[in-house]
């Protein structure tokens, strides 16, 4: 395989890898935010606490997608 084709293949693989890395966190953040909305709707007086905890959870879940994103640039 010549150099240009190898480069193009590497780029395409990196894009696919990032797409795969984004699946899990996407599902996770969806579940998390959905449950947080449910909790806030059931108990509006606890909304502040739920929101803080939700942001924490999102921050931890998102980290995986972001590491994938960084690797996508490194590839």
């Amino acid at each position, binding site marked *: 395989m010549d150099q240009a084709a190898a480069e193009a293949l590497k780029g395409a693989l990196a894009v696919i890898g990032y797409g795969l890395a984004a699946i899990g966190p996407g599902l996770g953040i969806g579940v998390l935010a959905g449950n947080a909305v449910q909790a806030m709707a059931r108990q509006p007086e606890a909304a502040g606490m739920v929101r*803080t905890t939700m*942001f*924490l959870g999102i*921050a*931890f879940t998102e980290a995986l997608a*972001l*590491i994938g994103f*960084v690797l996508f*640039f490194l590839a």
Partner: protein
Amino acid sequence: MILAFECDAENVAMCAPDDVSVLFEFHPIFESIPWLTRTHFLIVLAALLAIGLMYFGLRKRRLVPGKFQLVAESAFNFVDQGIAKDVIGKGGERYTPYLLSIFLFILFGNMFEVTPLVNFPVTSRMAIPAFLAIVTWFIFVIAGIAKQGLGYFGHLLWPPGVPVGLKPLVGIIEFISTIFVRPFSLAVRLFANLVAGHVMLSLLLGTAGIFVWGFIQGDLGFGKALTGGAWFILGVGIFVFEILVAFLQAYIFTLLSAVYIQTSVHPEH
């Protein structure tokens, strides 16, 4: 945004930079001072803005606050009440100065991304988030040792209630996650969010600029100009979203620093 105007003029529409680092690395402002780049200048500016807001906002305190004082006081209350006392709990106000400093510094650093004519978030250079994360790491480790003595490391390796048989496994996992993964993910989260935002805005608005400019020059057809307009509208939408991201990432960095300090000073939770 400048990516399009540095290549040869013959083929204006299709010109990709060699590397994404074109967007993040700058030449020195003055040729004679090689270390003074735009990034350095913006770091100092962000720090001065954070200091200036607090200094001038709270210099002459009055019972009925003026505009400046109101902003400074609400920033202080947001961090002091909402983050330090809420998350750390008893004794949290000791950490308010640190948390407020990193919150304001990161917020101003992020906001440069959406400031017209600047358009470069300094926190998208890994050195800055990495340095802030290392400072946070030192603070929570030292706070833990100061509070619990050398028992801190025992708590760190084995949270209360771990069965004896699992201790080696849990110890290794907890050690790696506390000592290595915490600062790494803290830094990478801020860095990657800002890099993503900067690249996205540069691509959308840069493409829109090239297409519309090419149409005005007469190189490109009307269809390309319409596409450029669509990119521009999407770019403006992302621009507004990036303002939210800039604030949210400053908040999350400060919140996670507070959570890490909390696990050191109140190990029972």
